[in-house]
Structure formats: structure tokens, C-alpha cells
């Protein structure tokens, strides 16, 4: 899951980034609305965590503008202002969820998962795909009922593919989901992780679409093992 964190307070932001990374999420952090704008233009995100008190623009205004332009990126609003009218305004401006500071890190992660699940139209936390079973919130992977040990990047890759089951994802998109804005990433890093994923879950789990990218394949690993 590739998360865009928009938060002006560096101390809070560093905590959230570290916490989300520990939970296996890919996080990119920006401090201002304008930086958020350019991040959104150059990269793909699955979800956004938005602090309302931004220095250059009110978070609510930014959100309203996004929605007016048709951005459907799910947004969880974080704020230290607890008046009910703020919450109502935030939800009316197009926020999908609302969390009051100080919040619980586990709750934030759980809400992000729930939000993503809702957006992709699933009602359960567990994604079943053939013999493959993936628990979104914990990242637990079962293949024919047996647990499979995956690295953090492999899990992120599998999550990205499962989240968009019919879609072709370009290697740039997958790279974003895995690494975010990290610069020094080997050019074939995504390929390496796909290779590992195929080795652990069966060759059919990732389908290569020549010239375009990758797609979630039929999980026919059972026959192969």
C-alpha cells in the first residue's frame, strides 16, 4: 500500500512514517499542499493521510479541490481540532475517514486498511484468490492453508497486485508501491521481487503483459507444487 502523508509537523510526521513502515506500508511524506500536489501528479498512491493545518493551504480546501477535479484517492483526515463541525466539514469536503489527534497508530493502520478495502469493494479483510489467501491488515499469506513467509517488499508487491486484480500495473507503478520516493533503487528491483514471489507462490501468480507491465495471474500454484 502506497501512502501519501501530508503533515506539516515534522516530529509528528516522522513518527507516523516510522510507524506505518513498521506495519509494512510504503509511505511518502510531504509538508505542504503544493508539494502534495506535485507528488500526486508524478506518482500513484493508494491512499492519502491528510493533516488539515497545512502552512500554505488549508487541508480542507486542498481536499475540496481534489474532489472537484475528480480525484478519487481515498483520504483519511488527521486533525487536532475536535469540534464536531470540523469533522462534518471535513467529511463533506470529501474525506473518507477522520481521525483525531492524538490517535493510536494501530487504529490508523486499521482504518487505512479498512478504507482501502471499502474502496476496492471488499467487505472482508481477507482476500481470497484461488488457493491464495491474503490478510490485508496483518499481511499474512496462506497458500492452500499453509503460511508462506514473504519479505516486506514481496508482501507489498502482492498487496498491490491483489488490490487491482484485473488491472495491468506498469513497473513504475509497482516501483512506487514498493519504494515510494526512495531514489537509490536498482532498476531491476521490481523484477527481482516478482521473481521471488513467483518462486514462493507459483509462476502463475504474476502474469507479464509484454510491453505494458504486470497483472495478477491465476493462482494455479497448487498444481505446480
Amino acid at each position, binding site marked *: 500500500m502506497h501512502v501519501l502523508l501530508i503533515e506539516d509537523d515534522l516530529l509528528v510526521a*516522522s513518527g507516523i512514517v516510522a*510507524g506505518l513502515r*513498521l506495519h509494512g506500508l510504503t509511505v511518502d511524506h510531504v509538508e505542504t499542499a503544493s508539494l502534495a500536489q506535485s507528488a500526486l501528479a508524478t506518482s500513484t498512491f493508494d491512499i492519502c493521510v491528510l493533516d488539515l493545518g497545512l502552512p500554505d493551504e488549508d487541508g480542507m480546501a486542498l481536499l475540496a479541490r481534489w474532489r472537484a477535479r475528480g480525484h478519487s484517492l481515498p483520504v483519511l483526515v488527521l486533525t487536532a481540532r475536535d469540534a464536531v463541525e470540523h469533522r462534518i466539514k471535513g467529511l463533506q469536503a470529501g474525506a473518507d475517514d477522520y481521525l483525531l489527534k492524538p*490517535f493510536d497508530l494501530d487504529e490508523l493502520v486499521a482504518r487505512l486498511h479498512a478504507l482501502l478495502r471499502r474502496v476496492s469493494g471488499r467487505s472482508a479483510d481477507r482476500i481470497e484468490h484461488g488457493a491464495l489467501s491474503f490478510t490485508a491488515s496483518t499481511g499474512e499469506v496462506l497458500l492452500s492453508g499453509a503460511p508462506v513467509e514473504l519479505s516486506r517488499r514481496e508482501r507489498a508487491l502482492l498487496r498491490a497486485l491483489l488490490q487491482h486484480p484485473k488491472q495491468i500495473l506498469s513497473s513504475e507503478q509497482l516501483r512506487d508501491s514498493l519504494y515510494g520516493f526512495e531514489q537509490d533503487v536498482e532498476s531491476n528491483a521490481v523484477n527481482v521481487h516478482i521473481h521471488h514471489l513467483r518462486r514462493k507462490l507459483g509462476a502463475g501468480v504474476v502474469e507479464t503483459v509484454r510491453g505494458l507491465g504486470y497483472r495478477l495471474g491465476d493462482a494455479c500454484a497448487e498444481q505446480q507444487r
Partner: protein
Amino acid sequence: MSIRLRLLAIIGMSLTMLWSLVAIWMFLDVRNELRTALDDRLVASARMVAGLVSQLPPVGGKGDSPLNVIARDGLACEVSLLRGEVMAQTIITRTAGSPGLADAAPGYGTHVFGGKQWRTYVLKQGDIRIATADRIDVRETLLRDIALAAGVPFAVALIGSLLLLWFGIGRGLAPLERMRATLARRRPDDDVPLPASDAPSELRPLVHTIHHLLERVQGTIARERRFTDDAAHELRTPLTAIKTHLQVARIASTRPQAAEVMAQALGGADQGVLRLQSTLDQLLLLARLDGPAEQASAECTEAGAAARQAIEDAQSDHGGAVGRLVFEAEDVPIPLAIPAALLVSALRNLLDNALRYSPATVPVVLRIERIDAGRVCFSVLDEGPGLTEAECAQAVQRFWRRSNGAQGCGLGLSIVNAIAKRHGGELLLRNRAQHGFEARLGMPVHAAR
């Protein structure tokens, strides 16, 4: 007491009193007129009888006697003959039911005959004495009938006008009642203006005043709300940082090879605690400055010493600021009537702002000038970007911060301003002529010396 009742009482009472006086006056008048008229009738009857008696021979026969004509009108009459020197009189004739009128004196008189009061008139014509009389109680009955006939419609009209007054006042006061209802329905956070258009001209100033009052109240509520909102924000943000970093540390403690993450998280939590502490300290200081004034402190502070202390503190806050702070002052001790801790705190806040918002390489000057015998001015001069006019005005508001990512919790200048106001000084913020910014803190010199 409602206006309606009060108006009704005032107008109703005056009306009733006025008309009652008129009624009494009229009644007395009518009674007088009636008495005169009836007395005149007695006289006229007596004369008529006298005329008749002188023309006709006084026959003792009854029947068509002219006296019967008089008797029909309820009068009593007695004709008697006076004879010789002896004052003996012989009653020639009298109306039926007439009491003995022989005792009545000539002219008008009031006598009691047979237990009843009579009004009498006695006319003497030659040797004939004619006495006419009517009963006073008949007169009274007549007067009562007249009073009743005139008084009942009068009373009905009075009651009617009071009722009309009641309804009329009610209708007249309807706009007031409408306004009351509007105000009663109003919620405290309602910011819709009162409808002034349908108020009558007498009420318009009141509506106006209420309107202004509501505006002021709303302003206060909004300010209070913003303050609590801002305070909550300033306290919650470091709290969030602490909580998040601690949770990160907890998760990291269960993972192998996460020692670095854990150390960073604990460091972050530490930083958050420091920030929370400083925000709390500032809020508490502001609250104390807002509170009731303590005993006018006899404490006396030397300006130069306080300034040097502030510079030292600011330097320890900004590790790299050593050498950036320049102190300019004459070498004359100036006593100020302000506790040292507060003056140092104010100067330190000003220096802190200057160091923070100006380029790290240029000096910041703290200058002490004696303006006149009674005042001294601390100027903190920097070469930063300064503030716009509007920002200068806003800068002393609590929690105000430059919008472009400024640090701090936005209480520094509020504190300086509060300290200055409390001790008879003032804070002035302005841009310098060329470039840079100047904060001037004027303080009164201790009067005792």
C-alpha cells in the same frame, strides 16, 4: 408589570378619573337645575292658584277645582283665608293627600310633615294664603332616575373604552412581542441578523442596539472558540508526536534489527515532551498574566542586567547564535518596576523571534535607549524579512503564526505584549527603514529613585 398592563393602568385610570369628575360635575349641575326648576314650578303653581282664586269666588265645592290640576302633577296645595289681626286662618281648600301646610313660613321652606320632608312655597295675596309643596323624596327619585338614565350609558362607554384600550395596546405592542419571540427563538451561535425592516420607528434604535450587542457577543464567542481550538491544537500536536513515537518504539522493541528505529522513536518522543512542556509553560504564563493583578510589586530590576541575562538565555537556546547577538547600551543603571523574571522572559521571546526569523549569519541587536526621564525602550533589531502591516497587527494575537511553516506555538509575542501591558509598558512592532524588523518594548522607569 407588562407594558400593556402599565399603559392600561395609566390611561384607564386617567380616563376614569377625568370622566368621573365630569360626571360628578354634571350630576351636581343637574341637581341644582332640577331643584331650581321644581322650585320654580312650586312658585308658578302658587301664582296660578292665586290667579284662579282671585278670579273665581272661593267656592267650597270640590270637583273641578283648579287644585286638582295641580294635584295631578304630584303637588300639594292649600289655600287659606287670613282674617283680621288674629292670625287665624281658615283653610278654604286643599288637594287630596296634602299635609297640613299651615305652619309653613312665607317663601321657600323645607318642612317635615307626617315624617316626610316637603319643599314648600307660601304666597300671600291679600288675605289669601296659598301654600304649595312637593315631596323631597319624589324629587330625589327623579334625580336618581335622571342620574341613572345618563350614568349607565356613560359607564358602559367607559368600560367599552377600557376594553378597546386593552386590545388596542395589545395590537400596538405586537411588533415588540414579535421581536421578543424572535429573540427567544434565537440560538446563541445564530449569526443571522435581526429583521430590522418590520420594526416600527420607535423600536428601530432598540433593534439596532440589540443587533450590535449580538454582534459583539458573537465576536467574543468566536474568539473564545478559536482560542480553545488553537490551544487544543497546540497541545495535541506534540502529544500526538509523543504517542506515535512511543508506539513506534513499542513495535520496534519486538522486532529484531530495529534498534535504530527504536532509538529514533524515543528521541522523537523526547523532543515532543520538550515541546509540550514549553507550550504548557507559555500557556500557564499567559494565564497568570491574564489573572488578577498581584500586589503592585515593589520589585525593581536593572535594565542592563536583565538584557544580559536574556541574551545569555537566548544564546543557550540557539546553540549557534553565539556572536550573533549584539548588546548596545549606555553604562548607566536604569531601574525598572517589573520583576526580573518577566522582563527577561519578554526580552528572550523577542530575541528568540529575531534569531529564528532572520538569516543565520547576520547579527541581531538588542539596544537600550532612555527615551525620557520616565521611560526606557528596549529595541530588538534584526535583518529578517519582517512582517506586513496587517501581520504586525495580528502578531500579538494568541497562536498567531506566519503561515509559511513557522516554528513555535505562536504565543511569544502575546506573552511579551501581556507582560508589557501589565507593567505599564507597550510593545511596538515595525519594519525598519531599509530592511529588517524592529520590536520595541517601552517600559516605565522605577519611580522611587
